[in-house]
């Protein structure tokens, strides 16, 4: 047997983190929640695909020569927002059977004649009729004009001047930010709960005394936060890759660059937000010794998290507003608000940097003060410890 060696702090933290990951990854509630989130993302992509492909589709059969009719039909379709497919048919009999079989929505017989006929199953729907009517009229009009000796008609073109040329792109970016922020909220709550439950489990099972005989409290705390943080990060990256990848693959977004940028900022804000909330959740959980008491001590932090989600969503509607501006710098709120402002594009680089620095300072503070509470409260395995007592208590 090899002799035991002394362990470095980082080695111990790694051991704790590895245990957290391997335990959690096999935990049923973790697996279920992951599957549900991924199904939700895949489902909403599928929904978007169906929705965006929901534009009307019309298949028109044309009997005989369709060299002139086909472009005219497609052009008409485009004008009224209908996706037209033209199918060539041999004769009227073929046209009738194609309509009866449902191969085409309608078949145009004698399209170039003065008496064209549209064969349909029961009745022609408005857009089909409009497309066919428009195409036939246009061709006929062209022919009559040509016969009258007019070859080129000078029709004025209407120029379009959009007042908000970026509105649609912004809309997509903000939508991505809203989805991102909601995801952020969901994962922060989920992993915050995991951390809190883990801390209480160690206290209620009293295993913490055995752990603290070999570990410093901060090593235990750091290992838990890093372990679950890596897991949470892996999950959010996976979700973002599936979501953004799906959105790009199915052409749901018009400006891939912006959506990717928003996704990256959401992931980075997750890291900061997780460090902040996970530490608070862990410290709060260390004050109680039973899972039943967890709700009460986690309440204030959960409320803060909910408030930040609400403000984040509000900011999506009014990213330049005073509320969004101010809260995007408030540690704890900023991870939910700043990504939205960034997505809306109304924010300078120094603002993002300042907000991130403030958040880092807050994390350092929470870890420092919270670490004191955590180490003092861990061995008080009976009942609830008051925050005040934990601050005063000696630390080992």
């Amino acid at each position, binding site marked *: 047997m090899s002799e*035991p060696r002394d362990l470095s702090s980082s080695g111990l933290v790694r051991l704790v983190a590895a245990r957290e990951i391997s335990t959690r990854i096999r935990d049923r509630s973790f697996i279920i929640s992951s599957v549900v989130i991924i199904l939700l993302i895949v489902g909403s992509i599928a929904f978007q695909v169906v929705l965006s492909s929901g534009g009307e589709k019309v298949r028109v059969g044309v009997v005989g020569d369709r060299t002139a009719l086909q472009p005219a039909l497609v052009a008409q379709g485009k004008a009224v927002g209908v996706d037209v497919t033209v199918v060539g048919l041999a004769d009227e009999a073929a046209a009738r059977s194609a309509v009866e079989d449902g191969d085409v929505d309608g078949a145009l017989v004698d399209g170039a004649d003065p008496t064209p006929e549209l064969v349909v199953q029961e009745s022609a729907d408005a857009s089909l009729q409009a497309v066919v009517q428009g195409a036939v009229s246009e061709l006929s009009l062209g022919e009559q004009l040509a016969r009258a000796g007019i070859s080129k008609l000078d029709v004025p073109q209407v120029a379009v001047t959009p007042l908000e040329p970026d509105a649609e792109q912004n809309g997509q970016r903000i939508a991505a930010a809203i989805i991102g922020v909601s995801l952020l909220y969901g994962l922060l709550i989920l992993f915050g709960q995991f951390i809190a439950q883990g801390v209480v489990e160690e206290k209620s099972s*009293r*295993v*913490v*005394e055995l752990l603290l*005989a070999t570990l410093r409290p901060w090593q235990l705390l750091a290992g838990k936060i890093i372990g679950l943080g890596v897991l949470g990060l892996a999950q959010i990256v996976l979700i973002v890759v599936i979501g953004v990848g799906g959105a790009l693959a199915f052409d749901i977004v018009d400006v891939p660059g912006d959506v990717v940028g928003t996704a990256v900022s959401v992931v980075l804000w997750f890291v900061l937000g997780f460090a902040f909330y996970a530490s608070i959740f862990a410290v709060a959980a260390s004050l109680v010794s039973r899972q039943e008491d967890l709700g009460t001590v986690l309440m204030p932090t959960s409320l803060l998290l909910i408030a930040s989600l609400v403000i984040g969503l509000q900011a999506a509607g009014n990213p330049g507003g005073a509320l969004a501006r101010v809260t995007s710098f408030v540690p704890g709120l900023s991870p939910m608000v700043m990504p939205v402002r960034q997505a809306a594009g109304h924010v300078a680089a120094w603002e993002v940097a300042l907000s991130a620095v403030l958040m880092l300072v807050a994390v350092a503070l929470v870890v420092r003060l919270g670490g004191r509470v955590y180490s003092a409260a861990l061995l008080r395995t009976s009942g609830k410890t008051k925050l005040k007592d934990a601050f005063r208590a000696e630390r*080992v």
Partner: protein
Amino acid sequence: MLEFDGLHKSFGDNRVLDGVGFTVAPGSMFGFCGSNGAGKTTTMRIAMGLVRPDAGRVSWQGRPLDDAVRRRIGYMPEERGLYPKMKVGEQVTYFARLHGLGAAAAARAAAEWIERLGLGERRGDAVEKLSLGNQQRVQLAAALVSRPEVLILDEPFSGLDPIGVDSLAEALLGQAREGVPVVFSSHQLDLVERLCDAVGILARGRMVATGTVEELRRREAGRLLRVVVPDAAPHWAASLTGVRVVSEQAGDTLLELDGGTDDQEVLSAALRTGRVTHFAWRQPTLVELFREAVTVSPQEVAA
């Protein structure tokens, strides 16, 4: 040597330890006795760095205990604790790794101890599915798996059935034979008497007695003589000089001899009364020693 030296500890106004000190030699078993609340657990927690002493220190081989040294100590807390949902094998491996074993060595040592403690078939089960006795064995495996240089066990025998007591005692004796100093606390004094090379009795935060059971016997009740003389008349010993009759019942007499009194003269006096069926220095049990030691003497109360 494992040395506990002048430990003082108060929690608020409550003085728990008031100069506790004792020494445990490598390869010896030290039984730590005391009433509830005497300070045994606090003493052990100080050794493990879970409580900070107001004064005093614990050292191993002349070196005060620090994190690195403590990693070489096997510890069993009074409040047993394991991860309830973690599998037996993984759990013991995890504790081995926390004590500094590499991944492969930890897995090997865990498998070996689980097998040795008769839990081989339960290796893949979650700890919460095991009976309390078996959980206790896992706890012991967690304490022993890293081949500790020192063992500190708080009430290791509590909650075990007689078979469990025997197998734990066997395991601890095995450790001691390999040169590991073993400190354990227990209320089962017969067990302490049977297993331990040395005993420490803690009362009101002080060591009131330390030494081998033999030493304690000599010190505490070395002058008590039991003489059984069935044919003797009552008060047969009353006239002997330097002898006080503690109790007398149908010839079964308990005598306390002054320092200079010759026990052979007492024997001659007894023989003069007729048959002597029993004549021996009385061996007080550890229970009696314990009672003697922890009872508050009148002087102490006055002080």
